[in-house]
């Protein structure tokens, strides 16, 4: 009870309420606008949190993350363009509903389903995270090494496309992670005389390049004169009727549970959650043939799942200190800039951050529900902003964001370089998310491996003698070996 009151008092501080509001507004905006995702938006705004209070900054960044999941459905339903990758499957039935004049109930169930699933996942996060953090206190360096390897292998096995390419990206990320001065010996590695690289390659400029600049380059390559046709005139009656609720009840329930579970797994992001939930709903439905023609369950299931996955994704970060998605990697960066290491000790050492962040999500979800339904008209108007006006502003924010990290032109150079690299990666069919995650996991893995080997006097058998570490390594091996099976599960046929 005392903990709950403490969490409420932190989250209800006016400054934290303000930042939660700013976060969810920006999140919704980013979700609505195609061409910029939550990773790029958080990377852009990461530097703005360096100077202020850490709790407020994290509340804002988290708000952007779950806010995008709400906003993404608007464009899927009204324009047939997913504003956010996790809303791709929402287009299938959402746009069809809009064409039939049922855009209102589609938007309504997307918002209510998102709210229910989002709140459900935060309740689970509230109760699951503390015991898991206690369990993680028994983890030593060998267990963390094995956990990092398991995280990377799951990310690779759950990635789309070629497994060889996914592993290559993980290796490139690990290589980039060793750039800088070796923390144990003080030996400079791959810094090429650039003293700004002594502390390593910054996460934020790489993320802004890979997810912000590269996305802009891909979009400007296409014609900028494309006009979006919205079905805004057909938005009537946002509240779903009783039959809509009956049809969506199972979809929202399974979407909430499945989405949360997928969110907890490393690599199991909001995109996978929404696709898996849609597929499951279609399989359990009495009328699967109607999916894709504008059924409300086809909107409720993926929207519930992608929101539930956001809560689940916080568990590995807050309890183990291991980011499992690019967004979580950036949040880890935000923690570390303030000298806070997320992990098992976070609850005891920084209860204000842990509980304040979690409780702010309850409030943020309520704010999103209020923002999304009555203000739908405003979000639709935002959609009409031509990309020719939007992309210079995205680039400008990236440039200023990168510059203000250290007031250094090197950071800007890194961002531009990785912008072009990200552009080429997409052209050559490589996944930038894996590179970014390996860049973050690399130093964690190297440090825990170093400590493990120091403990055992250089004997690798330490990983065999410790049961938890061994189990995790076996799981990592199994996840890589069972790659073809996971691919078959992950690539459902959606007509």
């Amino acid at each position, binding site marked *: 009870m005392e903990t709950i009151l403490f969490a409420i008092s932190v989250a209800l501080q006016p400054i934290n309420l303000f930042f939660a509001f700013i976060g969810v507004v920006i999140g919704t905006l980013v979700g609505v606008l195609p061409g910029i995702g939550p990773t790029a938006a958080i990377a852009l705004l990461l530097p703005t949190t360096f100077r202020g209070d850490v709790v407020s900054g994290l509340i804002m960044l988290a708000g952007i993350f779950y806010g995008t999941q709400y906003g993404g459905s608007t464009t899927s339903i009204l324009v047939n363009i997913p504003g956010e990758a996790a809303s791709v499957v929402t287009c299938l039935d959402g746009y069809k509903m809009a064409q039939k004049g049922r855009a209102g109930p589609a938007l309504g169930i997307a918002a209510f389903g998102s709210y229910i699933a989002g709140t459900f996942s935060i309740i689970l996060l509230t109760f699951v995270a503390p015991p898991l953090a206690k369990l993680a206190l028994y983890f030593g360096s060998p267990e963390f090494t094995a956990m990092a390897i398991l995280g990377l292998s799951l990310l690779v096995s759950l990635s789309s496309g070629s497994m060889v390419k996914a592993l290559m990206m993980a290796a490139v990320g690990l290589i980039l992670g060793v750039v800088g001065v070796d923390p144990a010996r003080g030996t400079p590695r791959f810094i090429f005389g650039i003293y700004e690289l002594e502390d390593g390659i910054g996460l934020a400029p790489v993320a802004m390049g890979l997810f912000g600049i590269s996305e802009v380059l891909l979009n400007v*390559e296409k014609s900028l004169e494309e006009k979006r046709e919205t079905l805004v005139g057909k938005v009537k009656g946002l509240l779903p009727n009783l039959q809509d609720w009956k049809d969506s009840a199972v979809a929202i329930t399974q979407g909430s549970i499945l989405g949360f579970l997928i969110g907890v797994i490393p690599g199991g992001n909001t995109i996978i959650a929404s696709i898996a939930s849609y597929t499951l709903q279609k399989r359990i439905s009495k009328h699967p043939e109607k999916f894709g023609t504008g059924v409300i369950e086809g909107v409720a299931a993926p929207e519930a799942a992608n929101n539930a996955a956001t809560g689940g994704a916080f568990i590995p970060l807050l309890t183990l200190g291991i980011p499992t998605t690019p967004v979580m990697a950036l949040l880890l960066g935000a923690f570390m800039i303030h000298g806070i290491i997320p992990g098992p000790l976070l609850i005891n050492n920084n209860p204000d951050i842990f509980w304040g962040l979690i409780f702010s999500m309850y409030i943020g979800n309520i704010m999103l529900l209020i923002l999304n339904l009555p203000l739908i008209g405003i979000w639709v108007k935002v959609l009409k902003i031509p990309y*020719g006006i939007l*992309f*210079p502003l995205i*680039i*400008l924010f990236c440039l200023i964001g990168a510059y203000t990290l250290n007031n250094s032109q090197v950071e800007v150079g890194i961002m*531009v370089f990785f912008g072009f690299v990200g552009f080429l990666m997409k052209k050559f069919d490589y996944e930038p998310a894996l590179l970014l995650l390996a860049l973050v996991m690399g130093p964690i893995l190297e440090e825990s491996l170093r400590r493990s080997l120091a403990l055992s006097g250089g004997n690798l058998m330490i990983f065999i003698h410790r049961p938890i570490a061994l189990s995790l390594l076996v799981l990592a091996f199994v996840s890589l070996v069972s790659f073809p099976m996971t691919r078959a599960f992950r690539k459902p046929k959606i007509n």
Partner: protein
Amino acid sequence: MNSRNRISAIFCFFLGLTVLIKGMRLGLKVDQEMGAGFFPLVAGGILTLLSFILFVQSLMDHGTQGHKEPFWVTPSGWKRVFLTLFATAAYPLLIGHLGFILSTLFLLFFFFKVIARLKWWAVGVGGSVATMCAYLIFEIWLKANLPQGLLGF
């Protein structure tokens, strides 16, 4: 995609090999502990091996040979990409000399006029308003200490 796989495999092979060699030079073991070069060696080795596998795969896979997607989506797309990249790369070089306001104005005017092909009045209004907003947010509100340049603003 096969030729692209081949090109990227060759690039990554040499990148991995370079890192591997550098890792060996940095030292693998110091006083029974992991040396600074151990991790780069392992990562470089993995990348080299995987690149080789990808290269071999691309040579053996004939299934997608017939399906060749053009690298550029539109004929003039490459011009817009390189002009955008050029302007973005030039901005950090300009900002130290011209200061935040002038370099931002130039950058936005360039994007609005050359890439987006907006009308002059839209270029002027859009560029000025966006520069002013960015200045207010970053310099005044967040106290980001943006460069003032030779002209002092």
